Structures are given as C-alpha cells and as structure tokens.
C-alpha cells in the first residue's frame, strides 16, 4: 500500500507545476521595452537605420538601378528574367510590381527606425544627442525625398501643383499602425527640407562614414534642384565644395569598387575616398551592393550598356576606360564594394548648373566647375558652357549611379515618347497599401 501511495504522490507531483516552464523567452531578439532603455540602445538603433538604408531595395542599389531603368531611352538594355525591373525598364509597370511594393515598405522601415530614435532622444547622453538627432533627421529626410520622387508627380509637373498633387503619407511617430493618407507633394517637400535643414545644423563636420553636415547639404542641393530653386541649390553645393573636407580623385576609376574602411573615430572621415560625401558601406559580412548584382558580370549582369551611350563621349574621355566587354560599366565590379550615393563631382556639376540657371557665380563660374570635371578625365577645357553642356557632362560623369530619371524630370526632358511628367514614369502605390487603406489614392494610369 505504501508503494501505491508513493506512486500516487509522485504522479501528482509530475502533474503540477509545469506552468513555469511555459515562460520561454526569445533568444535571438529582445523585448521591445529593453531596446530603447539606454543611450547605447539608441546609438545602436541609429546604426540600424543606416543598415536598412543600405537594404537592397533602398540605397543598396535597386533604387538607383530603377532610376536608370525607368529613365532609359536606349542607352541600356535590360536582359534579365526578373519581371519587376523589366516592367520598370519598359515603362509598363503593373500595379502588382513587386519592386514598387518592396521599395515602399523598405523606405518606411528606415523611416520608422528614425522615428523611434527621435522619440527616444531623452535617454541619449548630451555629447551624442545632436549627432544622433541629426542622423535620424538626415536619413528620414532622404527617405521622404526618395519616396516623393518615386511615387508622386514631380515638383515641376504642370498637371496640378505641388500643393494639390498627392505625395506620400507622412508618419513621424514610431511603429504606428494608424492608416495615414497621402500628404501633398508640397507637404512632403516641406518635411524633407525641415529634416535636412535640422540635420545640417545638428550633424558634425566629420562622422566616420556616417552622415555629416555636408551629406545633409548635398542632399539639400538635390532637393532644391528638383524644385528648380537654383539659388539655394548652388548655395548648398558650394558649402560642400568650399568646406575643403573633400577632393576630387585624380583617377576617375578610383571612385568605384572600394570596400568599407574600418571604423576609426567619429572625428575622422572614414569614407573610402576623399571624393565620397556619403556612401553606403558594404563589407563581405554586411550590406549589399545590388548595383553589382544587376550591372556586373560578377553578379547577374542583367543590364547591358548600348552603343547609344558610348557615342555620347568625346574621344580620350578617361571615363570610357571604365567600361569592359564593350557593353558593361565597370563602376560596380566589387560584390562587396560600397554603394556611392553622393560624390563631390556631383556638387561641382550642381553648382555649375544652378549658377548658370540663376545667373550667379556662387563659389566659382559654371565654366570653371565644368572644366574641373572635364580635366580630371583628360578632356580639354571648354571655352564656354551651356546648360546642355552641363547636363551632358553630368549624364556622363554620374552615369549608372541612379540620377537618370530625376535629372530628366527636373529639367523637363522626355523619356523617349513619354513626356517628363508622364504617369508611366511614376511608380504605382503598392496595391497592398490600397487594400489596407482604401482611402489611399492610387496614381494616375494604375
């Protein structure tokens, strides 16, 4: 009988108190409450914003690739099986285009990290808080700028006005599932300029390979160029050039295929080259270079350069030497190479164009700026310069770096038969967003 009681008791013991065992905590992730407690947490969070800014669908390459594809008129050839980029290249995007969805979602992911940082600045130590706020606003401003350029009518579109044309939803709160409708193009630009101006003020002069005040000024110059606000564009470009922090490399090719430097100190400039104002860092273990994936034979090599591009160069242009196989650009040969976002050369070209348009000579004359760019690639000085000269120089200097469609749109140039403001040159709002929020307005033609 004792044995029976013993068995019964042990059975009952086994029966009870397994409940505690149900408290299994995640191993690879942490509770969100513990992610924002200290200054160090927020410092890591802002680094996360760079990482996802460098996502393949954002500045890791697809955004720049798509700017080249959608704005192409016979200079490149899409030869891949992925249908999303093929539709973009054909200017025949379907509303279900997967890239339209990925770009949207991944840009807002970056924005949300920035919003989370900005909502938790109170825990950041005083010596870092300006920099971190500046970085968050820089990245958020960049993302809204890209979103409004890709998903909305351009600033100068004569159909409607920036104040009436729908832009993109503006969300400034962290991780909110609220359904937000599209703000106007003007409102988005206001947000972009506000963020970037704040960033410009808050960010330091050097910041390793992270954003600096000059990165903010550079993006601001792009924003003003999109608005044809040439005076401000020239001003911002001149701030960067005049800073003396950057210099043109003697060899054009040295700009490309550089791997990330090792992080040293925020007081150093750890960009891969002195010409880099801002680049997404790629190492063999983090980051991705989708420009390599699509342009290079070391990747998928889906994009060929057509003869129509080569005829644009003058004889002796050193930039021609960067092409290979007679049909490939050599800018993106390193699978683990950084993705250049802003190079100093762009600032010269922007200052030249903006000054010429504005009739000013902020910093230097347009002719001198253009000749600076030409001399570096072994071309002789021009005696005089026109807007067409500058745009051509810009096209060749910045070719296959993600400027194509934006430069065409802001200067009112068409893409083949499509006018610069054709709805087919604008991405559709992803169909999933319309399903989730039926009040969200779809773009024309989709």
């Amino acid at each position, binding site marked *: 009988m004792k044995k029976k009681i013993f*068995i*019964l008791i042990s*059975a009952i013991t*086994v*029966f009870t108190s*397994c*409940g505690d*065992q*149900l408290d*299994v905590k*995640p*191993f*690879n*992730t*942490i*509770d*969100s*409450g513990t*992610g924002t407690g200290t200054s160090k*947490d927020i410092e*890591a969070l802002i*680094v*996360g*914003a*760079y*990482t*996802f800014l460098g996502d393949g669908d954002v500045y890791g390459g697809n955004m720049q690739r798509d700017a080249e594809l959608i704005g192409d008129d016979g200079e490149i050839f899409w030869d891949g*099986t992925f249908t999303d980029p093929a*539709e973009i290249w*054909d200017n*025949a995007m379907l509303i279900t285009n997967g890239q339209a969805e990925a770009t*949207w*979602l991944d840009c*807002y*992911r*970056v*924005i949300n990290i920035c919003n989370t940082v900005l909502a938790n600045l109170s825990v950041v130590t005083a010596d870092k808080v300006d920099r971190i706020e500046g970085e968050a606003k820089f990245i958020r401003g960049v993302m809204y700028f890209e979103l409004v350029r890709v998903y909305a009518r351009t600033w100068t579109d004569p159909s409607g006005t920036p104040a009436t044309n729908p832009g993109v939803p503006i*969300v400034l709160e962290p*991780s*909110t*599932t609220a*359904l*937000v409708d599209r703000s106007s193009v003007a409102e988005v630009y206001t947000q972009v300029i506000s963020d970037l101006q704040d960033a410009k003020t808050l960010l330091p002069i050097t910041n390793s*390979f992270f954003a600096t005040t000059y990165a903010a000024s550079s993006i601001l110059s792009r924003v003003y160029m999109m608005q044809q606000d040439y005076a401000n564009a020239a001003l911002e470009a001149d701030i960067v050039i005049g800073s003396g922090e950057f210099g043109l490399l003697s060899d054009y090719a040295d700009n490309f295929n550089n791997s990330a430097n090792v992080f040293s100190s925020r007081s150093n400039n750890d960009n891969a080259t002195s010409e880099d104002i801002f680049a997404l*860092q790629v*190492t*063999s*273990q*983090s*980051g991705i270079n989708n420009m390599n994936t699509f342009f290079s*034979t070391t*990747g998928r*090599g889906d994009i060929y350069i057509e003869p129509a591009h080569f005829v644009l160069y003058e004889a002796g242009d050193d930039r021609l030497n960067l092409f290979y196989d*007679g049909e490939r650009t050599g800018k993106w040969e390193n*699978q*683990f190479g950084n993705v250049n976002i802003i190079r100093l050369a762009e600032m010269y070209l922007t200052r030249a164009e903006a000054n010429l348009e504005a009739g000013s000579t902020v910093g230097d004359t347009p002719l001198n700026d253009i000749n600076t760019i030409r001399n570096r690639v072994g071309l002789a000085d021009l005696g005089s310069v026109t807007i067409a000269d500058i745009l051509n120089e810009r096209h060749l200097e910045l070719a296959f770096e993600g400027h194509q469609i934006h430069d065409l749109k802001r200067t009112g140039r068409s893409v083949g038969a499509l006018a610069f403001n054709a709805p087919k040159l604008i991405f559709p709002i*992803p169909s999933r*967003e319309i*399903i989730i*929020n039926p009040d969200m307005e779809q773009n024309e033609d989709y």
Partner: protein
Amino acid sequence: MKKNLLAMCVMLLFFSGQVFGQERVITGKVTSQDDGTSVPGVNLLVKGTSTGTASDSDGNYSIAVSGDNAVLVFSFIGYKTVEVSVGTRSVVDVQIATDITQLSEVVVTGYGTQLKQDLTGNIAKVSGTEVQGIPVPTFEQAIQGRAAGVFVEAGNGKLGQGIKIRIRGSSSVSAGNQPLYVIDGIPITSGSQASVGGATNPLADLNSNDIESIEILKDASAAAIYGSRAANGVVLISTKRGKSGKTNFNLNYLTGFSKPTNHVEWLNTAEYVELFTEARAATGAVSLTSFTNRLNRFGADPANLTSSGTGVPHESWAVPGAPGYIDTKWDNLAFQEAQVNQLDFSASGGTDKTKFFTSLTWGDQDGILIGNRFQKIGGRINVDHQATEKLSLGINFSLARTVNYRLADDNAFSTPLQMVALGPMTPPVDPRSELISGALNPVTGLPNTNFPQYYNPLIDVAYNDRVTTVFRNFGTLYGNYKIIEGLTFRTEFGFDLLNQHEDRYFATQSSRNSGAPNGEANDIWTQVFNYTTNNFFQYSKSFDVHALDVVAGMSFQKSNTDFGSVTGQQFASDSYKKVISAASITAGSSTETGFAFASYFGRANYKFNNKYLVSLSGRVDGSSRFGPDNQYGFFPAASVGWILTEESFLADNNILEFLKLRASYGLTGNAEIGNFPWQGLYSGDGGYAAVPGQRPSQIENRDLRWEQTAQTDIGVDFGIFNSRITGEIDYYIKKTSDLLLAVNLVGSAGVARTQIQNVGDLENKGFEFVLNTENLVGAFKWNTSFNIANNKNEITNLDGQVIEGSFLSRAIEGEPIGIFFGPKYAGVDPANGDALYFTRDINNDLITTNDPNLAELVKIGDPNPEIIWGMTNNFSYKGIDLSILFMGVSGNDVYNGGGKFMSANGDFYDNQTRDQLNRWQNPGDITNVPQARLFGGNGIAESSRYISDGSYVRLKTLTLGYNLPQSLISKASLTKMRIYVSGQNLLTITDYKLWDPEVNADSFESNITQGTDFYSAPQPKTITFGINIGF
C-alpha cells in the same frame, strides 16, 4: 493480500477439479494462416464452459475437456475467431487467420486503444504492411489514396522534400496546416528544418518498415485529446513490438529503377529560329545583327568569345542538317535513369516476460533529376518487459542517418529542370573548351558569363554540392503500473533528437550563379531537441451492462532548436571544400529558439448494454507561444454512438450485421505560428560595417490567443453480409475561428510586413465514404477497398483583407484558400495578335482590353481539389497476390508560374513550349497564342492564360507477388519467401500539359500558394523487384 489468497484458493479448486474429473487433456499448436508462424497468447475456451487457457510463447497449448462433443473456441484480437470440434482427437492444431477488415480491429487512439466497433470518433487506420516495400523516402507518400479525406501531395519529384498533408482541408490561413505527428505517444518534430532551399521532410528519418500501424484522427472527438495541436488532425504512428514465442527473422530486399512520369515538348532548333526570327521582326526591339549574334552566342560560335560577334549566322542553328547543326533536347538531359536499392532486416520475438523487436534498414535511392539522391541507414530496438505482475516497462530506441544530395530550388537557374529554358542550339558540351557549356571561357580562363543564355544547371550538378545529412534519434521509455485491477498508471518519457548538417560547396565554375569567383562553402548545423513526458491514469471497468474506460493525465513538451552557420569564400582551388580553407569568412550566424506546451487531459468512454456509446474528453493546453493573458486554452469534445444492430428490432436480420450511428462535436486548436508571435521585439541584425545596430522587428499583440476549430461529425458505420461489405459514411463541418492570421500591416508602420492577429474565420465541410468489400472468398480471393472524399473550403471572414501568396494565389473572403485571382485571359485579337483580357466598361458590360492593368480582377481558378479518392483491389490465388491502387484528384487548378517565361510566345530568349507555334501570324488568325513579339510583353501578364485543370487519375501502386509454397521453403528452414515486382506511378491520366499535375513548386509553396508549377519535376515512375524472406 487477502485477494491474492482468495485467487490462490480458486486456482487450487480449479486445478483439483481437473485432476479429479472425467476429463482428458488436448494439446496442440496455434499457427497463423498467413505465414505459418506460431501465435502466442491466443485465448481458448471450451464452449459452454468457463474452462479456458491461452497458448504459450511457442503457440502451444493444453486444455482439459470432457467427452467427445467438446468444441474449442480460439479467439485473439486481430484474428478471426475459430471454433473446432475436438471429437476423439487428442492433438488439435489450429490455424487462425488475421482479421483486419473486421470491426473487432483494435484502433490506437490518443493515450489508449479502442475497438473499432466502439469508436464514436472518426479514425482512419492504415496498416503498416500497406506502406512497406514501397520505394519512397517517406511513409506519407505511401498512404496517398489509402485514407478517406487525407490529401497527400508531393510538390515535385525531388527526394526527401516536404510533403503536403491536408486532413479534411486547410483549417488555417497563416498558421500551420500540417497534422500533428505522434510516434508511440511522443509528438515529434515534423516541420522542415532546411535552412536553405525548399522544405525537407523530417519524417523521412523514420523507417517505414518499423511501422505497425498509422491511425489518422480526423474528427474532434478523436483528436481533441491533443487539444491545441489537433485542429489539422493527428497522425499516430505505432511501431512494431515483439511477441513472445520463437524469434522471427525477416529479410527484405528490393531493387529497381525510376524514370520521370512525363516529358514536355519544346521547340527544336529550326522551330526556335523560326519563332524568334518572327518575334524579333515584330518588335524590332533588337537589331537583326544583334539578334543573329545572340543566336550565334547560344550556338557556341567561336567568334563570340572575343567580341559580340560577326553578325553572320552560325551553322549551329542556321543550316538544319549541316555537320555543325545542334538540336539539344534539354528536357532529357535534366533527368537520369535512377536506381533504387533497399535492404531491410528485422528480428522479433521474446518470452512471456520480455519481448523485443529490432530492425535495420539501408536504402539508397537516386532521384529522377540529375544529381538528386537519398540514402538512409537506421536501426531500431523496441523492448517490453513485465517486471512484476503489476509493473511493466519498455523502451523504444531508434537511430537513423539520412543523406540527401539536394538540388537548387525550382525557381533557381541552377535547378536541373530550368535547363529547358536554354536554346536548343546550345550544345551541352562546349566544343571550344570541351567542357560543360558555360564552365570555361577559353579566352579569359574563367567561367563564361554570357554563354549559354543562362547559367547551365549541368555545371551545378557536376561541380557543386548541396548535401544535407540528418542524424535522428527517437527514444521512449515507459512504465506501466497496475495499481488495482482496472486502474493503471502509465508514465512515458520520449525524446526526438534531430541533428542536421547542411554542407554546401559552390565551385569556381558556378561563379556566374554563386557570385563567388573562387568558390564558396557554406556549413550549417541545426539541432532540435524535443522531449515530452506523458503521465496518465487509465481505468477500465465493466459491470453488468456498463463498460467504462477513463483516461486522465498530463503531458509536457519542450523543444529547443540551436542553429549555427558559417560561409566562406576564396578557395585556393575547388579541391578545398571546407570553410577552413576559405580566405574570407563572409557570413556566420547562430540562433536559438524554442517552445513549450503543458497540458492536462481527460477522457471517459462509456458503453451501455453494448449499444449505446458516449465519449467525453477535454484538454487544457498552455503554450509558451502566447502571452501571459492568454496562455491557456480549453478544448472539450463529446460524442455519442448507437449500435442499432444490437437492438432487438435488428437482431434477427441476416443481412445487416452491424450498423452504428455516431455523432461528435468538439473544439481543437492551432498554435503553429512560430515562437514568440505576441511579443514586441527588437532585432540586433542592424550591424553596419562592423558597427553594431538594432531595429524594431515586431509589434506587440498581447491579445493573441489560440486559433480554434469547432468540428461536427455525423457518421454511419455498417457491415453487411457477414462483414463481406463494410463501410463508413461521414459528414463533417469544421469551423475555424480566431484565425491566427498574418495580417498585412500598413507599410507606413515600418516594422514588419505582417503581424499575427486573431482575425477571421474559415470553414471546411465535406463527405467521406469508405467501402471495403470481399468480392470473392475462397481459393481465389478478391477484395476492394474504396474511399472517396470531398471537401469544400471557404474563408468566411478575413475582415476585408486580401492575403497574397505568390503569383496570383490569394486568400480572399468568401472564397476557398489560395484561389487564383487576377485578370481573365480573353484570347487573341484576330485583327492584330494582341493578347486580350476581360474587363468592364462604364456600363459594367464585359469587354476586352489589351492592357492587363485595366483587366478586371476575378477568381480564375482554385487549387483545392473537390474530390480525392483511392481504390485498392487485392487479388490472391494460392501463393500469388496482386494489389492495385488507383487514386485520383479532381476539380483543382494549377497555375504555371513559369508560363510567362516558357509559354510567352517568344517574349524572351527562353526556349518555348511547342504549343507556342500556334501563335497569331496574320490578321484573321484565330488562336489562343498571341503574336510572337520579342520583348513585346504580349500576353505575359499573370492571368488565367497560365491556369490549367490539375485533375488526374493515377495508377499509384501495382504489386504482384508470389509466396513460395511452405512445402518448398520449409526444406530450407524458411517460414516465408515472397518474390514481388512493384510499380509506382505507372500510369497518369490527365489533361495537364506540363510535367505533372501533382505539383507545388518548392520555392513558393505555402498555405496560400498551392498548385503552382515552376519548372517542377514530375513524380518518378518506379519499378522495383523484391524478395522477402522469413525464417
């Protein structure tokens, strides 16, 4: 102790009665009619008396009878009862026959067993013999067509891949839809552990030959004892156990070969040139020179190595019949003649106290796709021991090692079947390098980057490795203690240890695909330790007309998964394949995850007067997957049965032997949503150029709770003509509510695409019908087993959401899960060759448009089958037996995700299915294939153009065997020798045009993406020859 004394007195009296009565002793041996082996434990009763005994471990018995009119009754569970008149004999040997179709069959239920005739729930049983000797890596493939309402689908013809099982339809949109698998009482790890590539199947680690029976719990009454795990049904697997008596040895060897069940027709070189020449001219997207150079390049023109080409057509494609003309049949090169060899050995036996079963298996099977191979080696020992009269204990222990030589996924250029996209003028071996086309450009010394058209899968198979090795160990220890008569306590502890090594190497030659110019190695280890303890009381008691059977207990399960991987690039040569030789370590990771379930359960079965049956069960389940507010769920079920044939008004009829009505209702749950779905989470994966970073990765949902399925089942079991005809009819309705749905989050939330929320309802309802008939008995036997089921799935509420799968697969309110939703193809405009789609004009009238963006989006197909059925016919005559299994699926559609590439009327350079030759050419042409336009995007939008009917009927298994006569083999001291030939998938009848309608591409398969073809290989047609020896 008093009771024991009493028993001894009774025994003494009994024996003394024998000694002193007018009686004689009869002896004999009980053997099995099937294989002649002795049968221990058979109950004997002298009819009309209470005198009884049982056969001993060698099947021998002795019993006392009086007079010459005595009749002995031999009965044993699983065998037909035999009555023998003794007459004047003193030795009576008896052969008894197995009785598997009888209602007296014992069925394994959760935490117990029950006679089939007493069941009030719906359980389908498949006997182990039905899944044995079939050359498939995993047993689920062998039950296809054998159980009503159980849909089994292999996604493609690769070995060891995930198998889709749906029991009575899909009951969830985002959570798991696969059943719970329980081996000998222990839930096992059944989900794919593949960290790269398509899903693999952990059930392939189980040796099918160890299986005694498979019970599939389908309705709530049967399954609710597994509570939160049971909404998708439960598959109980019982392994073989020893019987006391002589040790039986069994040896089985089979060998054979496999071929694809089907090939697809592609354009030959002349047709390709014709179609694409026309396609280029139609659009002018590329110049004739560029086009010619392109074809030259495909045709391995030597001039193409150094420049883009001469523009002069090359003989490889330009001159049919010329010496250099090439016409490669890539569809054939993707396949191989595959060998299969399998050797199994088992021994079982024991004494009254200790019984054992032990087995060894070795198998080596090639896939029909080149480079695919699956090897298995394993062993098992099951021991049962009666320690004392009250205490029994036992152990099950198995070890297996499986090696899967895997292939790239269906959507990869590197998967063998994607070679059909290569132009027919491309030679498999490049005459310029005499290596596989693409392996080497003799000018650069590097792999070709633009020849052939795509990366050549032949390179992948020749140079790369994708080997997954799994070590699997199932172990269970149990103790059973009889507390008092009728009441036992059982404790079980079982574990399932899965150790997986994924070892991959991508050679220099594959750099075009891998992106690693000097090789890449990838080494991944996964370990899953999953243990369960079950502790429960069983009480069974019969008194008068009452019979009560009660189970109550608890169960606790915990599973932990550890994962580690490292990737390195830059190898000195491809002779080095391990990461140690990598000059650059490019990636590394380690992760861990886990879950726990704590459960308390109880069940009472009550039978009154052998005709009224009631069963009540309940389970409380707690899971680590839900937050503290909603950690526990309660899952009750109730069922009733009424055996009408026990009623007096039916007792006298001679036709209807058995008739039972039954009904059940209960709740089951689903928690298969991954771990930690309710928590707000941050991930530390935001590191940037060696600077640490993090990000928000999941938004909290504290309200998250179980997904719940309420199922009603009404059924009839019947047996007529002395059980020559038996059957079951069931109707069920399964309503799932509080779906664990991956709800699309608004993009601007910026954390994750989706969040798991309890949103929505869905419903499955259907009929099941099972009929078993013994058509001919006697020397020539013929029996038929037929099952058919229909299921109708409908998502009744999704809160207005549309959940997208791949391509056009959607979950939409008011429709079955995974319907194809998109533009409806309207054929070709006879005037201009444009592809047309249906849309609505301003008056809502149906019109057509050539712009797929403007097409109306409608339901254009449904991947869920309406009807699934299977029919087995067994014939036997003397030693010859023949078994034929036909199965079929109908009413489902298949979407060809590769259609826009392979049947795209020459939109791109991919070789085209031959039906594209029917393209529109001239105004007035009536055809369904639009005008060929290179880069024209004419008709290649995802639409109903790429949907086909996926119904099929298949001769799944045909086995012809011959048992050599006893007289012959007994001379060799054998008890059994059977030779057989067996065929799998010998015949497939379908209208489907690609390889195989039984398809779901591994790279896309999900709950929603079903029935999608993407260069997916067909099922193998396998013929094997086998020999089975018992001694």
